């Protein structure tokens, strides 16, 4: 009752979207890392695993609602003053969360990446981070028939959560086909324990170079539902296979495929749900003006921020600084931005 009134008051008179946003700087004095539109989570443990993986344990605030196995959250950390946000699938089931009060993330770090390369250091100095509500519909739906999980690299994370949650809820066969680089398979002890506990669960751990066909180990005679999570090309191969055999297929994308930049690259840009094609040999503002999109031109040289818009996802190059942006949400100036990948923008 009081919150909507205070929020409206804040919008009209305090010029903030909510009362929580207005008092955020004060709340942070008492609760470090508190943010108006996100949940606070304490960084309990960060462990480096093989294959440049990090296992991160977070204790979210009591208000955080329980998730469904397979769902993801956005993780926001402050790294050198910059709030960086990325989406990660939770690698724990709701039951595990209830038992320990902790959420687990398994993150594959990339030294070339803007986010994961800084993650371990950022979490070492920032005892608090922020998480969003759980979301996503990559959840288990096959209680009444066999299913096969196919994971590539860090695509194992939703599978771990789903296996822990669902093995006790179904008697049908569940098989996990887990691809990773040699020596980089994660949570193998957990998987071994699950096979001991549940007769209807089995798994194989494979590496791409020794098993070049992703789909070799799928038992198509069972007509299983296929759940796949891994790199884009990996999932495409599995998707094509399942389409051919008319199998039910679910997938979760988690990585952006980054092509090499040449002047003649073409990229798709989603703007307010419409898709447009842009080239990388012209700044975005000029191209949007030519398409008569509702953009505002200011100085045209990156000073006045009139043409600024929100990039929801994708990478642009700032021609003033020659720096690549993050892949996540941030403000960009269209007049000095060159597309480097497919983009989603909010004008």
């Amino acid at each position, binding site marked *: 009752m009081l919150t909507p009134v205070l929020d409206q008051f804040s919008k009209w008179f305090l010029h903030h979207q909510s009362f929580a946003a207005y008092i955020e700087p*004060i709340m942070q004095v008492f609760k470090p890392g508190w943010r108006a539109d996100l949940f606070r989570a304490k960084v309990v443990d960060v462990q480096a695993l093989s294959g440049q993986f990090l296992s991160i344990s977070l204790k979210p605030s009591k208000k955080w609602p329980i998730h469904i196995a397979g769902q993801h959250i956005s993780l926001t950390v402050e790294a050198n*003053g*910059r709030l960086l946000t990325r989406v990660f699938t939770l690698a724990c089931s709701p039951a595990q969360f209830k038992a320990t009060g902790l959420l687990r993330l398994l993150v594959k770090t990339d030294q070339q990446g803007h986010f994961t390369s800084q993650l371990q250091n950022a979490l070492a100095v920032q005892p608090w981070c922020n998480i969003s509500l759980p979301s996503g519909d990559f959840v288990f739906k096959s209680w009444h028939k066999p299913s096969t999980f196919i994971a590539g690299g860090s695509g194992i994370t939703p599978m771990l959560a789903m296996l822990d949650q669902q093995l006790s809820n179904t008697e049908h066969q569940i098989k996990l086909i887990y691809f990773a680089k040699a020596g980089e398979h994660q949570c193998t002890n957990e998987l071994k324990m699950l096979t001991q506990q549940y007769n209807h669960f089995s798994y194989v751990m494979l590496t791409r170079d020794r098993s070049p066909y992703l789909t070799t180990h799928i038992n198509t005679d069972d007509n299983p539902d296929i759940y796949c999570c891994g790199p884009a090309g990996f999932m495409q191969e599995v998707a094509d296979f399942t389409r051919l055999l008319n199998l039910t297929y679910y997938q979760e994308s988690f990585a952006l495929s980054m092509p090499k930049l040449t002047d003649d690259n073409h990229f798709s840009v989603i703007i307010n749900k419409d898709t447009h094609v842009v080239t990388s040999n012209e700044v975005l503002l000029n191209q949007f003006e030519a398409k008569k999109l509702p953009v505002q031109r200011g*100085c045209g040289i990156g*000073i*006045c921020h*009139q043409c600024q*818009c929100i990039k929801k996802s994708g990478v642009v190059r700032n021609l003033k600084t020659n720096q690549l942006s993050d892949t996540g949400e941030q*403000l960009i100036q269209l007049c000095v931005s060159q597309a480097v990948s497919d983009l989603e923008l909010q004008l």
Partner: protein
Amino acid sequence: MTTINYQQLADDLDEIKMSTLATVGQKDANYIRSIVRKQRFCEIGGRILFMLGFVQPLLWVAGVLLLGLAKILDNMEIGHNVMHGQYDWMNDKQLNSKSYEWDIACDGQSWNRVHNFEHHTYTNIIGKDRDFGYGLLRLSNDFKWRLKNTWQFITYLNLSVLFQWGVSYHELAGERVFIGKKKPNRKGAVAHSTLKKRFFSKGARQLIKDYVLFPVLAGPLFLWVLSGNFLANLIRNLWTSTIIFCGHFTEQTHTFYEQDCKNESQGQWYYRQALGSSNIKGARWFHILTGHLSFQIEHHLFPDMPSSRYQEIAPKVQAALQKQGIAYNTGGFFQQYTSVLKRILRYSFK
């Protein structure tokens, strides 16, 4: 002017910019967040102290000063700089140029158009930069003398007292929304109806907040709160007007002509920015209260560099300008303000 190596000037200033931006990070984020935190404490503290005025009037005086300080911090160090995009790199939803709205009668989007674009792109170009004299004051011989210029010192005082409304009305005046014939060189980016709607909406909300809502909520202390809000707004208006005049209208600031600025290089653009601005010397607290517009030269050269860095780069900027024989106009507050007053008076007459 012919002896200036504009390419060298651009290279030197670009180097200052890039090397500074490369080090921007946690320290700068902590700085602006600490200023926002102080602003909130001042605003809430000031409004609470108003209510205690009946116990001890000095508490009311402290409340006026605190609320005035809160409005100055909000408008100058936070609002002006955040809306310039100086802290967009932080990715903070509360501190970015797309969403920030300040505690002043002027609609932020309107200010962005007129100030960020028009003033910072066409700085001191006669006929293009309406900030030069605000269409009210004759501050150079580039403008024809008119009778009304005789009493422009009074006009200046009125503008200072009502400064937030001057800033608010600035774009509407330029677009001739209510009175006057539209000038041929103006291409209005926004419909008049939108300009009017946002002008009245923001202005009304500011008036209701300070002169109706908070006083009414104070019940029997209505007048204490009403008068406190009035004085806090007045303090803010006088301070912001004075600082901005010192940064732009000392006797030393130059004007430029549109034909001279066609196809100007980066170096020539820097040159124009440097000569179109004046700095004010002072202590650290003074710089913060001016929103670091006491480093107006640095601000005009690098409008989207975090203000927390202007003091640090000022000696390097001065050296780069001196290398080319370009004046670096700076002085104490009273020296610069006296110079402003002299200029207003000087051009009151033919």
